[in-house]
Structure formats: C-alpha cells, structure tokens
C-alpha cells in the first residue's frame, strides 16, 4: 500500500548544470565586437591619413624658407668658386670662369645633390 500522501515523484530529469549562452548568442556577440573593432580601425585609418596630410603640409610650408636660405649659401659658394677659378686661370686667354661645359643655358648644379 502507498504511504499516506502518496509516493514521492520519481527523479527522472537529468541533474545537469547550466549550459551557458547559446551558440547563436556567442556568434552574435563576437560579430558585434568585431564590427565595433573594424569600425574603429577604419576611423583610425582615416585619422592617420589626416595626420600624414598635416605632417606633409607642415613641411611644404617650410620649403620656401629653407630653400631660400640654401640658395643664398649655394650662390655665395659658387661666386667664391668662380673667383678662385678666375685667379687660377688668369693667364689663359679667353677663359671664362664658371662657364658651363654644356651648350645649354639650363642650370645644372655642380653637385649630385641639389642645394636645399
């Protein structure tokens, strides 16, 4: 005979711990985090482009100033070279100091590097 109040329920459910978030949820969160990261990356790339532009223009603005100073120095040196050449070659008739070796009026620097 059953005890008073009846039999207790039979424990037929498995007693497992929580499974955690579902696979779809994990995939979704990963996608969201990645999307945010890629957005920041794109914004950062745009910002780096602007930083490079700023740096380039800061140098462009200084080019005339530095070039003018270098030109004066190059001119001073060339004048001294010509005077020295005239003093050395003064006994050669018809010698023109500083004359180009090319039959072309275009300016050519006497150096490999342009005086900047």
């Amino acid at each position: 005979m059953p005890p008073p109040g009846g039999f207790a329920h039979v424990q037929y459910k498995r007693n497992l711990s929580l499974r955690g978030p579902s696979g779809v949820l994990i995939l979704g969160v990963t996608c969201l985090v990645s999307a945010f990261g890629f957005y920041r990356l794109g914004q950062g790339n745009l910002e780096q482009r602007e930083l490079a532009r700023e740096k380039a223009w800061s140098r462009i603005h200084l080019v005339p100033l530095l070039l003018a100073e270098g030109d004066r120095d190059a001119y001073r040196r060339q004048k001294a070279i010509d005077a020295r050449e005239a003093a050395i070659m003064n006994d050669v008739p018809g010698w023109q100091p500083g004359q180009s070796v090319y039959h072309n009026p275009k300016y050519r620097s006497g150096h490999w590097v342009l005086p900047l």
Partner: protein
Amino acid sequence: MSGTYQAPSASTAKPYIEPASIPDELPKVNEIGTTSGPLKSAAFFIGAYCKEYNEDFMLCKAEDRDPAHCLKEGRRVTRCATDLLTKMRENCFAQWDAHWQCLEKNNQEYYLCRKPERTLNQCMFERLGLVKTVPGSPEGQPQIHEKERPIYKAMQK
C-alpha cells in the same frame, strides 16, 4: 679672395669651410637661425602669413632652379618669416615655447602635443588673426587638429 682653397689632407681631416661672404652688392638679410622644433610649431602660421611670398618664390624656382635666379624673392620669404617669428615672440611667446618644447620631447609629432597646440592656435587667432588650416582636409568635418576625441593621441593627457 680672403682664403685660398686648401686640399683636405688626411692629416688635417677638417671639413673645408668656405671663407668668402656673400657679394656686397646684394642686400643683406639676416638668416632665420631657428631650429626645427620652433619652425615646425610655427609652420602653418608661416604658411598662412607668408603665403604670397612663398608662392612667388616657388613659382620663380619653377622657372629656373639656378640659385642666382630667385635671390630677391628668397630674401622676401626670409624677411616675412623673420617678421612673423618676431611677432609670435612678442605676442604668444609662452604658448609657442610650450608647444615646441612638447614637440621636441615627442619626436616632433603634432598628434602628441594637441593640448599646447590648442592654446597656441587660440592665442595666434586672438592676437594675430592667423588660423591653422590643413589644405585638402575632408569638407564638413573638424580638421584633424581640432578633433575632439581622436583615436591616436598621447597616453597621458
């Protein structure tokens, strides 16, 4: 000629320094004599203040690369820059000093020195009316030096 060229020999390995000065018939101009940090700090203001002289000089250089061709325009460029730097020293010396010292300590990168740069820009606008603008920036957005929350910035503010 004050000096004669001496061929550099192995025993006296000193660089040859040209002793001659610039010809006297040219007008004298004081060289700018400023190092890279202050110049970088003032670059955009030089570009704004001396725009006509700079463009004139570069157009002249495009005509002919000969250093003798553009001496007059070059003197104007240098005089204009000297004038601006004198004005900056008179009006915004403390802000300018702070900014270029920061640049010197941060590899001369603008983005690491926005804080002193903003005080300098504000002072230059209030006293001299000069605005820093980067040409070619996208329209409708704040320029890179005015961005509120940049991604690339100094670790410590």
